[in-house]
């Protein structure tokens, strides 16, 4: 969820420059050095496109009622009760509910005093900045809870067939989203891993080579890449660098 822009007083831009690292992949007694970097725009785009194709492929299979994936992951209407259907639809709607609540927030961001204002005004502003994220979160939480109750009431009045349709849509959406993220992160590790410190020689000859690693090894790459990442909202907090 998007954080407030007023947190820029806590900005630390140093993570921007820690964009590569060396670590050792451990497999039994063997330790292999790996050099990893945050991807550039071109490789990011390649990863995104590959992830979208993978998620589209899963979506196609999940929509086919005779596919193995559909039978394995999506329950038949007779095997699932109303309460479970409603609970699943609500849980998987949480993101859109949260997003729809953000514009309804009434809380205003603290207004920065003039640079020549009294120290007490700067102190007051800083106190407002410090408490802003918690106050905003509290208001948002109350709005979200209200929306959830409304959504639940609406669903309870609906027929099982309709709710089941929403359940299937929500399940497919969520599973494809997870597939997209999984694939994207794997692609980032594949493109971002090198044999040499100067980042000139790729570690993996192909994506399949990375993808076929033992889960434990693969996880080590994923964890290391994730430790270097700065997420969108954290980058937004770096807006001091753009002022």
């Amino acid at each position: 969820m998007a954080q407030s822009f007023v947190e820029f007083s806590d900005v630390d831009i140093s993570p921007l420059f820690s964009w590569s690292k060396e670590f050792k992949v451990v497999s039994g007694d063997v330790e292999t050095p790996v050099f990893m970097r945050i991807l550039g725009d071109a490789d990011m785009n390649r990863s995104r496109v590959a992830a979208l194709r993978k998620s589209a492929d899963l979506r196609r299979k999940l929509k086919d009622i005779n596919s193995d994936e559909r039978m394995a992951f999506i329950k038949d209407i007779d095997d699932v009760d109303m309460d479970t259907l409603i609970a699943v639809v609500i849980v998987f709607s949480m993101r859109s509910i949260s997003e729809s609540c953000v514009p309804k927030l009434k809380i205003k961001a603290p207004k920065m005093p003039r640079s020549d204002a009294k120290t007490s005004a700067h102190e007051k502003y800083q106190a407002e900045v410090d408490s802003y994220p918690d106050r905003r979160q509290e208001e948002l939480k109350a709005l979200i809870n209200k929306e959830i109750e409304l959504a639940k009431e609406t669903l309870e009045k609906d027929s099982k067939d309709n709710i089941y349709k929403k359940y299937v849509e929500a399940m497919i959406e969520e599973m494809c989203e997870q597939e997209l993220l999984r694939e994207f992160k794997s692609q980032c590790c594949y493109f971002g891993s090198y044999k040499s410190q100067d980042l000139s020689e790729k570690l993996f000859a192909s994506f399949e080579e990375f993808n076929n690693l033992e889960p434990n090894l693969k996880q080590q790459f994923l964890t290391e890449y994730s430790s270097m990442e700065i997420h969108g909202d954290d980058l937004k907090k770096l807006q001091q660098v753009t002022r």
Partner: protein
Amino acid sequence: MDLRIKSLSDTPHTISYVIRKRQQIDSLSELGKEKMPTNEIIWDGSPEDLEEWIERVLSPSKSDTGTVISLSDVED
């Protein structure tokens, strides 16, 4: 710059994001304080939200700087 970065597309996407954002804010500043999008749109809005805002403030009908020509003023 780091010698390991050999082309612009190699620049870590985190750094290029900040550079692009800096450029975007510089460009938007050209609109002037009154027409500048809000912080919420700049930082949390979608590109479509920003585009919509710019179209709205630059639209001749909404612009307060444009000259309105009445048809009755046009000479035959």
